[in-house]
């Protein structure tokens, strides 16, 4: 299930980005035509096997590399063609959490965090207050003056998290931020990240930690340098619940419902806009996410039927192969999820009884 709205306030916009390593004969393409749009305030988890290109994509988004091909825009600023100095300035607005936390051994936990605050010119009087606040929040209030060598792996990781988040950046890029943390610490860190996301920060996180998947808004999977799936997790859960409440999908397993949900595409319709017309060839199945539509049954001498959130239409023509039996018009601005014919048929094949069930449902609605 992918989002495709055009006017959303994108914090990160990656369009058709390719990337190569090496020169000449050793030049190897590692990213292939990747497009990813992330709204401000979203927590996105990126997964994929090692070498799938997720770290490379993250380094491009983090202005750690120069964009070679395609367009990359961060918080409204295009990174295309920026030189090292401009990229450095862009990086100052990003909070990085590195898997190898790379704290300065010579500096205390507080001083490591302070290095991030000095970079953006935080007033000296503010620094102690904010540094103390975030370290206490991460359970390090009693360890502020400890050097990294005197801290455990998890504590060091939390200092690195504090360093990345203390400036409350608008964009946070994290590489396995919870890998070294126990369950409680992980919960604290994710809570802080969630809080920042709710305040409008955008978070892109590479992780293999299953414990934190439920904190994500989206999960982007990469395979062989390509984004293979991009799931809006919360929306997907809503859609799965809608699908599961529909009689014809009730017998599908969780995985099968997810399979169907992942193949649905968003479509917005303005009030008064016809969605399907009577007599047309049926090519799509529709699920109403929000708004209301009206089904015109006047040719059958019936009053119009109003459908709302969680209702569906368009399945009959796909099942029977007939043309559309009614015109459906948006009564107000609507957000629809649309399943194309091929995906719909694939969903039917998941259950041998599915076709019969749908026919029965169809006839029940007549």
């Amino acid at each position, binding site marked *: 299930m992918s989002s495709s709205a055009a006017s959303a306030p994108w914090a990160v916009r990656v369009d058709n980005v390719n990337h190569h390593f090496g020169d000449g004969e050793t030049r190897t393409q590692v990213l292939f035509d990747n497009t990813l749009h992330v709204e401000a305030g979203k927590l996105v988890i990126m997964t994929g096997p090692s070498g799938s290109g997720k770290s490379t994509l*993250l380094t491009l988004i983090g202005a750690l590399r120069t964009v070679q091909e395609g367009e990359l825009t961060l918080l409204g600023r295009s990174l295309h063609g920026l030189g090292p100095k401009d990229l450095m300035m862009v990086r100052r607005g990003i909070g*990085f959490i590195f898997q*190898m936390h790379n704290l300065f051994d010579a500096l205390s936990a507080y*001083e490591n965090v302070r290095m991030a605050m*000095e970079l953006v010119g935080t007033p000296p009087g503010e620094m102690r207050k904010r540094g103390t606040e975030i370290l206490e929040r991460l359970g390090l209030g009693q360890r502020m003056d400890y050097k990294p060598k005197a801290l455990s792996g998890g504590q060091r990781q939390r200092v690195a998290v504090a360093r990345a988040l203390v400036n409350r950046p608008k964009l946070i890029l994290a590489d396995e931020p919870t890998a070294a943390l126990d369950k409680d610490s992980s919960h604290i860190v994710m809570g802080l990240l969630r809080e920042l996301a709710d305040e409008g920060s955008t978070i892109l996180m590479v992780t293999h930690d299953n414990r934190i998947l439920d904190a994500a808004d989206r999960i982007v999977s990469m395979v062989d340098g390509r984004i293979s799936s991009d799931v809006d997790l919360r929306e997907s859960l809503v859609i799965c619940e809608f699908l599961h409440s529909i009689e014809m999908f009730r017998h599908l397993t969780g995985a099968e419902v997810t399979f169907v949900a992942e193949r649905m595409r968003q479509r917005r319709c303005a009030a008064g806009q016809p969605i399907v017309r009577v007599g047309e060839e049926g090519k799509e199945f529709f699920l109403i996410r929000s708004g209301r539509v009206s089904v015109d049954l006047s040719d059958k001498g019936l009053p119009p039927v109003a459908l709302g959130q969680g209702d569906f239409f368009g399945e009959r023509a796909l099942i029977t192969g007939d043309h559309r039996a009614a015109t459906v018009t948006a009564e107000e601005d609507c957000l629809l999820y649309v399943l194309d014919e091929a995906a719909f048929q694939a969903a039917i094949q998941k259950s041998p009884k599915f076709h019969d069930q749908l026919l029965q449902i169809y006839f029940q609605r007549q």
Partner: protein
Amino acid sequence: MNNRPMQALRRVAGIVPLPGRVPLALRSLTADRARLLRSVSGIAFAVLLMLFQFGAQKAFIDSSLEVVRALDADLVLMNPQKNRFGTKAPFPREQLVQAAAVDGVQSAHPLYAEWSRSMWKNPDTGLWFKVQVLAFDPDKPVLRIPEVEAARHALRTPDTVLVDSRGRRFLGFPGAGGGSELSLRRVRVIGTFPLGPDFLIDGTVIMSDRTFLNTFLPSGGVTAAGSRPSKVEFGLIKLAADADLETVRARLRAALPNTVNILTKGELEAIEQAYQSRMAPVGPVFNIGVVIGFLVGMLIAYQILYADLSDQLGQYATLKAMGYSNGFLVRTVVEQSLAYGVVGYVPAWILANALFWVVAWVTLLPLGISLHLTLLTLALTLLMCGVSGLIAVRRILRTDPAEVF
């Protein structure tokens, strides 16, 4: 008050971190005490090498200048063939007499000297050693050495001498009342004076012109009157109270043939210095030693910093990734380098002083570390460490911040 110029100066100097800033360089320096000790030892060794070379060179030159500085004169006449004080090249006494008649000259006194035929017999061991002999008319003082001044009238007694109390011990210079032989002539010591040896001369004997005549010119080289040597080694000119040095020098130049050089004491010192540092066999060795000390120090400082930076590569790459500029990284590394220099300099300076005290006691050379030498070597140390830091910092400038992700 506007502190910005001071802050800018501190930033440029890179030594003192700005107030309110994490002193990253200083913290990095002191984080690992064992590493700090190793690093400081290495740098201190290089500094010690430089200090010792400089100190020895200075002692080498200073020791040979002691006698020049002791001359009581405004201008010095000498044979132009002389390339240093201790080269035998006398000039005719008549020219000194001519000089004395020049307007503005208050006095023109002769100084006689011998370096090659002057053999001193150690009265205790019976061994013979070459010494420097200086002689003058006791009525015409030429040396600003209080002990010599006090005893000069006593030198009128034939075959009496003053000996250098700081002469090398193997010469066996006795105190007042002692005696020995100088170039096979029996002499009696009536007093001592402190001058000290240099790298070529082990000790000095001072006598009257008459004793000099009897010892070294018994059968010739005397004036018509027969009471004075006919040639003098130096002519020491003192000017009248109101005379202008350059004016008198011009008059002397006009009055004397060009076979006589007319020099100020400063010029004579410069000739001596030039000879010792460029022409004397040992002089260039000291210069090479200083250069080697500097290069060795730079190599040591570079290796220390390179190893430090290699250990902290990830941290510095992280700073780059966070958005710290290359300028900040360079400044931090140079700060650390300079701090190493300062921390390494202090023990080296103390050790060098101790070492010089011991060596000076053994060799009787004027070894020591002057303020000028302190500042010069400190500047060289900071330069050495700063340059090493600039070379080593390339290691982190080459680091790709993307690699830390």
